């Protein structure tokens, strides 16, 4: 039940951000679906893992893979699908709390949350690069099989 509501919320949130990023109308649905699956995986891993890097990493791999598949099917660059897709777990939350702790002069907490958001950003970037490279490696093989 929680997963259904989370799916709906993340889907609608990504739709909102897609419009904000001026995504072509026909592609909004596809991009939001990829964002939704990314968030669901993120949520699933977050519920039993205390590590903050693993959920973002797995989520972004999924977003990257779905983005690459959509790019191949719909003939648009993959970035168009991945940029709105990673929005739900991009560390905006962490950046805000870092700022807040600095304003409150709590530099210990600021450093902790700041480092945490930096590492989340690194893991998201790694996840997407990994997905892209993986697709680039196996793509010739798939094309050979289809021929």
């Amino acid at each position, binding site marked *: 039940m929680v997963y259904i*509501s*989370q799916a709906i*919320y*993340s889907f*609608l*949130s*990504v*739709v*909102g*951000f*897609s*419009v*904000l*990023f*001026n*995504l*072509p109308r026909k*592609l909004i649905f596809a991009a939001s679906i990829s964002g939704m699956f990314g*968030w669901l995986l993120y949520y699933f891993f977050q519920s039993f893992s205390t590590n903050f890097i693993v959920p973002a990493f797995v989520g972004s791999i999924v977003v990257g893979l779905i983005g690459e598949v959509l790019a191949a099917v719909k003939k*648009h*660059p993959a*970035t*168009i699908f991945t*940029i*709105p897709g*990673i*929005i*739900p777990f*991009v*560390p*905006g*939350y962490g*950046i*805000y709390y*870092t*700022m*807040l702790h*600095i*304003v409150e002069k709590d530099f210990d907490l600021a450093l902790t949350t700041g480092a945490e*958001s*930096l590492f989340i*950003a*690194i893991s*998201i*970037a*790694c996840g*997407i*690069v990994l997905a892209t490279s993986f697709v680039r490696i196996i793509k010739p093989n798939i094309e050979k099989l289809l021929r």
Partner: protein
Amino acid sequence: MELQIEIKRVIRIATRTGRIMLQNGAETYRVEDTVKRMVESRVISSKKFETVNVFVIPTGIILSADYENETTTVLERVYPEGIDLECIDRANEFSRKFTNGIMSLEQAESALEELSNPPKFSKVIRILASGMGGGFFIFLFGGTLTEFFLAYIASAATILCMDGLASKHLNFFIKNIIGGFAASLLGVILVQFTRWIGFEANLNIVIIGPLMTLVPGVSLTNGIRDLISGELLAGSAKIMEALFIAIALAFGVGMVLQFSLKLI
């Protein structure tokens, strides 16, 4: 002389396309690749360019192309504007057509004119959608229905304010200070108002909605992505940009919170 002019035209078309992509948030490697391919694909009086070197950083493109022992170098200055995926998509399609050689130079130049002003969503839809983006985001971090409505109003109003500022040509630091200030001021006012009516709302959760539309999460991630793929200069420039946007937002938010914490 004719030859020189044609070479310049090809290079100009390529760098303009690169500028449009870069301005609207495309990754560095994609811009480099696109510009290089566009120049290399063209045949001028049955000869191609010998070597093409492209160097891209978030604030500029340098291109140097050799044609019959003559080197032409062009610098295109770029001012980042934000993320516009429609623009990237169109520029990408345009470059694909251009490299296939279907287009004449005249056609390409007129197509390039159209590229620089792509269709946008109407203002009302944009404002409503920004409310959706910021509002539903609240639920992902355990917000309640009251907080959702507050965040919806605050996000929509913040984007309205930022869109109004876009035509004023302010520098990005000042713009983000105003954005952070507006977002948190709206948050504080709305939360106070709901408390006065008799509902409970957490200020931190309400503020994160509108701030999510401003916070540089995507440019931080893209910067790290550039670093990973070996674009060291471009990557560090993007991360610096993200850092300074965050500092500007902290300025704005801090100003409001400092006063509101004392007043409440």
